[in-house]
């Protein structure tokens, strides 16, 4: 080596030190040590949430199955089955974005969605059913369709099932179970392993499971919202960002983005909100607190602090869902305007109707999800359900009004124009009740531009 290269090496080494320290200074949800007292196993870390990642893979796959023919048997295998041999249909390896696992059992064995679905009442869907019954009913109805879409009701089961399941399984389990009663002193204590022989304490695992359901990559705090969004979309340019351990592929257990974490990222990349990092930081801080207790029961002060982190997570998570309701209400508003115009001009409206139904399915799915957080929404829930109704308003101004003998009943109701106004009110409701900030597809967005075009009247002209 020539002497002239030595300074360059020095610079390189310094850069590497800086890079490594920058890396280390970011909080990653991984490698927390084993703190279980008298642990006899050989595990090096207490972090474990494979079951949650298996359920994310089941949910993603189920969504694909509904869209591709909605085969009853296959849907059941991914929703309520536990059998070995289930392939991960989504997220699967793509050109430029290889994933590590191809079987659900590689993430965790014997998991399903049905067993973890909210079984409280759901008011926003007809039939007086529990959350799990609603999903079963939707899957049954979907099996009668060719592509998961029923043009007679406007129900898009791909979206309805997916968006509602994200709430009824992931959100509900996290905020109404793990971050709720399981944080109490007597429940899953930190001084004992979660189950006999486990490498994690009760509280460690409770917290890990809640984190897993959110769906964020373990290294989220080293990433931007845009990165996480691109990872969920499996964009090839995001591979390097996703592949935290540098093995050339994306580990679906720790490096992939799913469900509400993806939605949080999608709003945050607009720059007005910071849901993804706020929630993930609270998870990391909570996990550090539990780890610091070192296998002993949490003191009252520690538990109070932990519950404060949990509240941050719950509030922000609910806001992410409310933002989604806001966004899709805006999409439905725009869809109705286009539909009305097409109908008035005697144009073919079938494609527009399909888009309208898709957006409505997302809107309704997220709205139903808000009901599964364990907190009664009170008047907000009532208003939201009244505004949305049980189905989109169809071109003949009819809407689903209930379920009788397992079949939907429909009746004439409000006009599409009136329904469009309902979407404005839904957005207003999300602002008033949940304080949404990102406000994608804001129907009042045109106001801001127009008002800006009027200029400021700060220097009053006096005549």
């Amino acid at each position, binding site marked *: 080596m020539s002497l002239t290269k030595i300074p360059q090496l020095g610079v390189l080494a310094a850069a590497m030190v800086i890079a490594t320290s920058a890396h280390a200074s970011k909080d990653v949800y991984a490698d927390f040590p084993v703190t279980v007292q008298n642990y006899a196993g050989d595990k090096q870390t207490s972090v474990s949430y494979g079951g949650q990642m298996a359920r994310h893979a089941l949910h993603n796959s189920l969504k694909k199955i509904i869209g591709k023919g909605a085969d009853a048997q296959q849907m059941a295998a991914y929703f309520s089955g536990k059998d070995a041999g289930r392939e991960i249909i989504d997220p699967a390896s793509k050109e430029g974005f290889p994933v590590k696992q191809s079987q659900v059992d590689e993430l965790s064995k014997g998991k399903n969605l049905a067993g973890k679905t909210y079984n409280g009442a759901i008011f926003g869907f007809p039939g007086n059913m529990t959350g799990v019954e609603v999903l079963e009913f939707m899957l049954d109805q979907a099996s009668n369709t060719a592509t998961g879409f029923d043009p007679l009701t406007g129900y898009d089961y791909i979206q309805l099932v997916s968006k509602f399941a994200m709430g009824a399984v992931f959100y509900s389990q996290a905020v109404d179970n793990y971050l709720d009663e399981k944080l109490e002193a007597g429940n899953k204590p930190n001084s004992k392993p979660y189950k006999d022989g486990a490498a994690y304490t009760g509280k460690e695992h409770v917290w890990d499971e809640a984190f897993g359901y959110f769906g964020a990559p373990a290294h989220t705090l080293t990433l931007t919202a845009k990165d996480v969004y691109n990872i969920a979309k499996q964009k090839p340019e995001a591979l390097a960002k996703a592949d935290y351990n540098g093995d050339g592929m994306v580990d679906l257990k720790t490096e992939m983005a799913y469900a509400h974490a993806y939605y949080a990222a999608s709003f945050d990349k607009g720059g007005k909100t910071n849901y993804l990092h706020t929630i993930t930081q609270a998870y990391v801080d909570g996990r550090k607190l539990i780890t610091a207790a070192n296998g002993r029961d949490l003191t009252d002060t520690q538990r109070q602090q932990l519950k404060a982190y949990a509240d941050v997570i719950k509030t922000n998570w609910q806001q992410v869902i409310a933002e989604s309701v806001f966004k899709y209400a805006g999409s439905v508003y725009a869809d109705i305007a286009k539909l009305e115009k097409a109908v008035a001009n005697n144009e073919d409206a079938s494609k527009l109707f399909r888009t309208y139904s898709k957006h409505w399915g997302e809107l309704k799915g997220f709205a139903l999800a808000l009901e599964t957080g364990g907190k009664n929404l009170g008047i907000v829930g009532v208003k939201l359900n009244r505004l949305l109704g049980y189905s989109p308003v169809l071109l003949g101004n009819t809407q689903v009004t209930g379920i009788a003998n397992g079949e939907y009943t429909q009746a004439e109701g409000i006009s599409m*124009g009136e329904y469009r106004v309902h979407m404005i*009110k839904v957005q207003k409701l999300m602002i008033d009740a949940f304080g949404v900030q990102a406000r994608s597809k804001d129907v009042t967005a*045109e106001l801001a531009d127009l*008002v800006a*075009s009027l200029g400021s*009247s*700060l220097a009053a002209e006096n005549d």
Partner: protein
Amino acid sequence: MLMEQLLLDTLIWLQELFWGWLAGLQTLLLAANKRVSVGYLVSATLVALLWFSWRHNWSVHDTLKQLYSRQIWWSRSARLDYMLVVVNQAIMLLLKPFLLGKLLVATAIYYAMADWLVPVAWSWSGLEWLVPVIYTLVLFLLDDASRYWLHHLMHRWPVLWAFHRLHHSAKTLTPFTVLRTHPVEAVLFGLRGALVQGLVTGAFVYLFGSKVSLLGVLGANGLVFMFNLLGANLRHSHVPLSYGSRVEKWLLSPAQHQLHHSQDRAHYDKNLGVVLAIWDRLGGTWLAYQPQTPLQFGVCDEYDQHDNLWQAYWQPLQQSGQAVKRVIQRWVSARQSG
């Protein structure tokens, strides 16, 4: 450490304020929606030159002398105008965050309308162009009418006149006299603008969505642009450009506005409008311009004249306070005797 941070934050804040203030002044002189911007000052000069050469055979020299006399532009009164423009800009910048914004009003109206009205679904074949036309027209009409109405109140109510009197205390008129305004009055003007423009914009967007836009020139309302281009700055000048009584019934001429600034009692509280004369005619305050001896501008009452900035800002507050006190005293004595 804390002190340092505080000091730094204050410095940054002051710096932002300074640049904001400078940018505001720049806008004032360059933007197409500001009366005193350079382009309109030039156009007003041209209008005056053409008009006086055509109607009165004045030479260019005479007109320019009349327009740009040093006695007018550097009078004590005019210098106070300039100082007020500069200081007001800073005061309004500080007040801005606390003032009602147009967007807030527009959004509130938009949501309120959703409670009682379903927008009509048109097929819009070939009629889209009408929406911006109507929007621009309605905005202009309501703006003009509400300015008349507020101006009327400023003259009628002693509590408000105390502030508006500052504008009328100008003894010489230059285009910058249009900005000789007490901050309290400026806040009221801002509120009016927010309510009227917010209301119209919120309602139009609710009813017509993205089809609404402002028909403008260089970002200014097209009608306001025309008004300014055609010499609105001559309203505050010493050149009595009159349109003749036939036109003045519909459009207020610069000469009519100069009557409004006259010390003569016969001219008090007349010609309160801005562009259209119809509001004055409806309100019984319209007065045609008659060729006469040069007008004396200013106010003559028992109060002090405004000679410096302190008087300009403080005296209106004092005078308004006295007016409020009188109202309360009257109310109390009426209750006691009743």
